[in-house]
C-alpha cells in the first residue's frame, strides 16, 4: 500500500514537471515576424521595422473565407540605441509576443550599410536563440528598409516571401543577384581574403501607395519591389553598387549561376544570338609567379542556342565551334568587367585572397596585411572560358537564312 501511494505521488510529480508549460507560448499570443528591417535615424539611433503576419488575412479563401479583408502583414516600428533594446521597445505597440523563429528576411537600409556597416548589427542576431542564421539578407537600394517592407505584393501575399523567392529564381534563371544568408555573410566578413557582396532590392513607384491595399487590387500594381544589383562591401561597409553585366560577371566568378541566357554578336550584328546555359561552373586557381600573385578563373559552360536572328548555317559544326569562340569572348568580357569594378573600389569580392590563403599559406602571410588595398588591385587575372554548344533547340536553321 505504501509503495503504491508512493508511485502515485511520483506520477503526479511527473504530471507537474513534464507537461512542458514552463515558458509556454500560445499560438494566438505570438506575433510571427516574417521580416525585420534596420535603418539608421538622423540622430544616429537604429530604427527597426518588424513585418508581422496577420494570419487571418493570409489564409486561403477556401478555409476561412475572410481572406483579403485586410493587409496580409502589418508593420511595427521602434527606435533605440541597440537592436535588442528597440525590438523590445516595439512590444509597447504590439499586442502579442514577438516571435523570431520564422524571420526569414533581414533588410538593411542603405544609409546604415554605408555609414556604420553591418558587422555590429549581426552580433545580436547571431546570439539570439530564436533568430535563424539561415535568414536571407538584402540591402534596401536607395530607400529605407522600412519603406521596402511596407510595400504589399501580389501573387505571393507575404512580401518577405516574395523577396526571397524572387531572389532565388533570379539566381537560378538569370544571375545578377543571388540569395545570401546571414551565415554566409558572416563567413565572408571574417575571411581576410574576401569581402561580401549582398543583393539589393529597390522600390519602383511610390512607397506610400505601395503600402495600401489598392496596390494589390489592380492587375498592374503601381508600386513593385525588384532586385537591383549587388552591394559591394569593404571592411563591413557598403562602398559601391554594381548592376547588369558587371553584377552577372561577379555572380559568375562566385559560381552561383545555374541557368542564364548570354547574348552574343555574330558577324558585326549586335546581340543577334542567345546562348542558353544549362550547366555552368567556375573555379579560381591561384599561382605565384616570381613572387607575384596570379589568379586564373576557369569557366565551363554547357548549353544550347535558344535564339538566332541572323542568317547562319547552324547545321555546320564548324560554324558552331566558331560561335563557341564568340560566346567565350563575351563571357570573358563580362568577367573582366566585374574584376575591374572590384579593383576600382579595392575590395576583393571574389574571394581571390581566400584562394591564395588556402593554397599558398606561406606567401599569403606577406600579402595578407594589405591585400585589398595594394595586392588585389594589382593582381593579374586570367580568364579561361570553355563553351560547349550541344544543340540548337527544335529547329536547325533560322528562317532568315537566305538574304
Amino acid at each position, binding site marked *: 500500500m505504501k509503495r503504491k501511494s508512493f508511485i502515485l505521488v511520483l506520477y503526479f510529480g511527473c504530471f507537474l*514537471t513534464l507537461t512542458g508549460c*514552463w*515558458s509556454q507560448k500560445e499560438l494566438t499570443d505570438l506575433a510571427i515576424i516574417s521580416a525585420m528591417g534596420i535603418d539608421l535615424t538622423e540622430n544616429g539611433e537604429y530604427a527597426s521595422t518588424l513585418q508581422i503576419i496577420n494570419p487571418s488575412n493570409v489564409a486561403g479563401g477556401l478555409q476561412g473565407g475572410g481572406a483579403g479583408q485586410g493587409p496580409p502583414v502589418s508593420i511595427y516600428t521602434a527606435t533605440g540605441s541597440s537592436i535588442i533594446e528597440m525590438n523590445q521597445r516595439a512590444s509597447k505597440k504590439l499586442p502579442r509576443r514577438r516571435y523570431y*523563429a520564422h524571420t526569414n528576411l533581414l533588410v538593411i537600409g542603405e544609409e546604415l550599410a554605408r555609414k556604420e556597416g553591418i558587422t555590429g548589427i549581426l552580433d545580436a542576431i547571431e546570439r539570439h*536563440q530564436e533568430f*535563424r*542564421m*539561415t535568414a536571407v539578407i538584402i540591402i534596401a537600394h536607395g530607400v529605407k528598409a522600412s519603406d521596402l517592407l511596407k510595400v504589399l505584393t501580389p501573387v505571393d501575399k507575404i512580401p518577405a516571401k516574395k523577396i526571397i523567392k524572387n531572389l532565388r529564381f533570379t539566381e537560378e534563371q538569370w544571375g545578377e543577384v543571388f540569395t545570401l544568408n546571414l*551565415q554566409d555573410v*558572416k*563567413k565572408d566578413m*571574417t*575571411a581576410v581574403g574576401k569581402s561580401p557582396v549582398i543583393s539589393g532590392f529597390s522600390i519602383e513607384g511610390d512607397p506610400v501607395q505601395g503600402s495600401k491595399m489598392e496596390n494589390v487590387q489592380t492587375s498592374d500594381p503601381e508600386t513593385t519591389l525588384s532586385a537591383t544589383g549587388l552591394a559591394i562591401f569593404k571592411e563591413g561597409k557598403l562602398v559601391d553598387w554594381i548592376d547588369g553585366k558587371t553584377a552577372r560577371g561577379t555572380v559568375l566568378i562566385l559560381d552561383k549561376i545555374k541557368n542564364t541566357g548570354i547574348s552574343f554578336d555574330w558577324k558585326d550584328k549586335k546581340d543577334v544570338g542567345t546562348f542558353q546555359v544549362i550547366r555552368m561552373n567556375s573555379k579560381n586557381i591561384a599561382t605565384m609567379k616570381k613572387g607575384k600573385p596570379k589568379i586564373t578563373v576557369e569557366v565551363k559552360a554547357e548549353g544550347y542556342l535558344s535564339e538566332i536572328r541572323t542568317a547562319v548555317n547552324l547545321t555546320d559544326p564548324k560554324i558552331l565551334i566558331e560561335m563557341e569562340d564568340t560566346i567565350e569572348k563575351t563571357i570573358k568580357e563580362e568577367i573582366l568587367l566585374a574584376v575591374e569594378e572590384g579593383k576600382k573600389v579595392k575590395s576583393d569580392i571574389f574571394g581571390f585572397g*581566400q584562394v591564395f*590563403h*588556402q*593554397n599558398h*599559406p606561406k606567401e*599569403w602571410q606577406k600579402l595578407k596585411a594589405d591585400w585589398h588595398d595594394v595586392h588585389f588591385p594589382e593582381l593579374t587575372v586570367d580568364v579561361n572560358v570553355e563553351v560547349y554548344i550541344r544543340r540548337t533547340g527544335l529547329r536547325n536553321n533560322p528562317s532568315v537564312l537566305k538574304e
Partner: protein
Amino acid sequence: MEKAKIGAYQFFVLLLLFELGSAVLVPIAIGANRDAWIAILISTIGGVFLFLVYYRLYKFYPQLTPSEYMEKLLGKFFGKILAFAYILFFVYISARVLRDFGEMLLSFAYVDTPLFIVNTLFILVIIYAIQKGIEVIARTGELFFNLLYLLAVIGFILIVSSGLIDLNQLKPFLEQGWTTVFKVVVTETLYVPFGEAFVFSVILPYIKDTKKIKYAGIAGIVLSGINLSLVMAINISVLGIDLATRSQFPLLTTVQSIQIAEFLERLDVFFMVSMVIGIFFKASIYFYAAVSGTTILFKFKEPSKLVYPIGLVILFMSITIANSYSEHLTEGLDLTTRYLHPFFLVLAPVFLLAIAYMKNRKRKKK
C-alpha cells in the same frame, strides 16, 4: 561490487557513447584551428595506448576494481587515499558533465527555465539508471546506440546533400605547424575524451568474455576518434573557422544550417537527442564509478542506498561549481584538463602499472 555480467559488445557500445558524450557537442581541439580534426586523430592513437595501460592494469587483477588493487599496490594507507581521491574526481567530473547538459539546454532551448530544475530532472533519470545497475545501463546503451547512429547517418546525408560542405574551408593544412597540433593533443584532447576511458576500469571486471575486451576497447576508442574527427571536420567545412570557433556548440549551428527542399530544416532536435543520449551515458558512468568506489572503500553492503546521497552531491555540485558558463569552461580548461586529468588519467595509472610490474616480477622470482 554487484553481481553483474555484461558482454564485450555492450562494453564497446558503452565506451563509444561515453567517448562521444559531450565531446561531440562542444568545440574540442579548436585550439588547433583548422587542424582540429588532425589533432583528434592523433589523440586517438594516444588514447589507444592509454587504454592499453588501463588494460594491462586490469590484466594483473582481472577480478578487482581499481580501488581494490590500489590498496594492494600502494599499501592500505596510500591505496585508500588514492582510491578516495578518485571518488572525488569521479563525482566532480560527473557534476561537470551534468552542468554541461544544463548549460546547453538553457543556452538554446529552455532560456527561461532555472538550471536547477533541468539538472534535477536529468539527475533523477540517472539515479534511476544507476540503481538498476550496470547491466541495465549497458542494455540501454545498446538501444540508444542504434538511435544515435541512425540520427548521425541521417544528419550526415542531409548535410552532404544540402551542399553545405566546402572542403576548401579546411585548407590550408597545418597553418601554424605541427607544434600547435601537438600542444593541443598533449594539453587537451588526449585526456578529454580519450583518457577518460580510465573510468571503465571499474566496469572491466564485469565483462564476461575477457578475451575480447582488448579489441572491443580499442575498436570503441578508434571509432569514436574517427567520429569526433569527422564531426569537427564537417563543422569547420560548413561553418568556416571563425564561426566554428565562436560557436558555443558548433554541431548545433551546423545542424541548423541544413536547408533542403524548403521543409527539411530546423533540425535542432537532432542535436538535442544526441546531447541527451551522450550526456546521459557520460554522467552515468562517472556516477557509477563513484558509487562503486565508495561501496568498496567504505565496505557498504547495499550500494543502491548510496546512489541518492551521491546523486544529490553531484546535483548541487553541478550548480555551485561555477557562476557562469564561461567560468565553467575556463575552469574546465585551466584546472581540470591541466592538473586533474593528467594526474588521474595518465600519471597515476602509469605509476600503478609500474608498481604492478615490479611486484609481479618479485612474485615470479619467488
